[in-house]
């Protein structure tokens, strides 16, 4: 069996607040990273596209997770099949998640928008399984996991509650759909643990708030984005902990086609919870082969140790508007962006911690319907 460390999904977004109906290219984006979370505010994804404007985003995200120094990565095993939580049964090594997110934003009215986010994920994970049990001295055996596929899709509505030329507040509400697999297996043929699967196996609710203000009109703007995600318990008895995100940053328009961004990203993850009985692994011992001891046979809701984390990152980045560089139909309302998310402070609870992540993206908008007026 395995254990994973990882978790969560992502959200992200955007900024850049050009308020011109005709000029502004809504560069939108969101990255969902499954177990790991990359959550950078990227373009104007949080904003409402102009009425009748359809914006496509393609975002690639690379997010590695490794152990922090001073931690050993020994965590419990999640046994969904037998509803067991086995303490100290795994030792985490690393996880790498790559996500390509396809994101669509459409302005239904000038203030109301709809957004659909479809993540496609590649995840590799490595850990040592069966501490006290497997291996000549109970040191466990290395297990690998690799999977790819669609993660949990998100569908949401956004409303511009306070619209002026210099500021806006956008309220959003999204629903995560359980479209990601929760039955992928590791190299030993066992079903991988819930936190490492591509999906969560249950619906999630996701209210958001985005705010931006033009400090120096059309030159420098600040933004903030907050998000809360609650996922219900899935059929395996596993419930991902609530996720709180807060992003604060600023965009500087240097020349019309180049915008520099800096932002701080904070994430707080509540402990996961599992409906399971409780077992304890034996410590590695010469000879090994010691079965975990049953501590509590009652199948009840239990917080999962070593889940939950706190993460603060600094994310510099830039956005290039092709519209301002090359005058052609292909580059119209098109932009590229790149961000690096650099950890500043991490408390991973003796689990794997998110390392420096990278995000590349492209945004392209199409005026599907002409706004009235």
């Amino acid at each position: 069996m395995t254990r994973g460390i990882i978790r969560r999904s992502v959200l992200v977004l955007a900024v850049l607040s050009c308020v011109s109906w005709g000029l502004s290219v809504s560069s939108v984006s969101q990255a969902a990273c499954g177990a790991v979370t990359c959550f950078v505010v990227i373009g104007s994804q949080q904003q409402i596209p102009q009425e009748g404007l359809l914006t496509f985003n393609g975002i690639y995200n690379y997010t590695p997770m490794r152990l922090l120094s001073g931690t050993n990565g020994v965590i419990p095993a999640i046994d969904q099949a037998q509803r067991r939580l086995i303490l100290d049964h795994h030792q985490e090594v690393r996880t790498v998640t790559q996500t390509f997110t396809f994101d669509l934003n459409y302005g239904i009215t000038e203030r109301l928008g709809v957004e659909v986010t479809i993540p496609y994920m590649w995840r590799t994970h490595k850990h040592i399984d069966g501490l006290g049990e497997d291996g000549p001295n109970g040191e466990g055996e290395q297990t690998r996991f690799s999977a790819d596929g669609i993660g949990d899709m998100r569908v949401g509505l956004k409303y511009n509650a306070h619209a002026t030329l210099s500021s806006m507040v956008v309220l959003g509400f999204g629903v995560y759909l359980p479209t990601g697999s929760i039955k992928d297996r590791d190299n030993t043929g066992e079903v991988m643990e819930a936190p490492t699967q591509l999906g969560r196996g249950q619906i999630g609710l996701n209210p958001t708030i985005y705010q931006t203000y033009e400090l120096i009109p059309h030159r420098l703007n600040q933004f903030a984005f907050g998000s809360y995600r609650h996922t219900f318990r899935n059929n395996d008895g596993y419930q991902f902990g609530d996720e709180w995100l807060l992003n604060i940053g600023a965009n500087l328009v240097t020349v019309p086609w180049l915008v520099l961004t800096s932002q701080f990203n904070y994430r707080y993850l509540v402990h996961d919870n599992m409906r399971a009985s409780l077992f304890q692994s034996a410590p590695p011992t010469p000879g090994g082969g010691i079965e975990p001891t049953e501590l509590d046979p009652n199948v009840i809701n239990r917080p999962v140790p070593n889940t939950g984390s706190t993460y603060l990152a600094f994310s510099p980045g830039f956005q290039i508007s092709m519209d301002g560089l090359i005058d052609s139909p292909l580059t119209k309302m098109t932009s590229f962006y790149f961000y690096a998310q650099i950890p500043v402070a991490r408390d991973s609870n003796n689990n794997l911690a998110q390392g420096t992540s990278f995000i590349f993206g492209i945004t392209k908008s199409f005026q599907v319907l002409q706004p009235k007026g």
Partner: protein
Amino acid sequence: MRHRATGLVVWGVLLFIWMQGQSIESLAMGSRPPATGMAAEDFALQDLSGRVHRLSDYRGKIVLVNFWATWCKPCTTEMPAMQASYDRIRDKGFVVLAINELEDEAKVREHIAQYKHTFPVLLDKDNRVANQFGVFGLPVSVFIDEKGVVQEYIKGGLLTEQKIDDIVARIQKQEPVKAASIR
């Protein structure tokens, strides 16, 4: 307990951010465009020479209030048409008030001099008049009749000489407002 405290802190910060700079009135009303057929609220703004222009000063004329900025391509694209119409029909009671939004006065002055615009250019330095007219994207053009009533509210769409002439002619004939333009 720790979770609840963190949650409260996060939402507290978000609420603070939202409240900053927001007046009670703006929270309640947002920034909404005036409906066609309603009286336009009066305003007073200085032009580039420091002279104060009030909307009510132009009662008896058809006024095109145009919200614009130099960085806004559609805005600067439609300004020559506004100038041409202004030159042609200003003697027939047509006025253009081009309201610049949130830009440096020197930059506006340079732009106006470069394109030789002669209609009054007003400076809305604190975004107040734009908010009054529900403007949160540029350009926006508002046609106001001789009685000070909003007859047309155009967002984003480019103004042409023909379009301006048609709207002015329709207002002069007192034709009913087209349903499509009611917002």
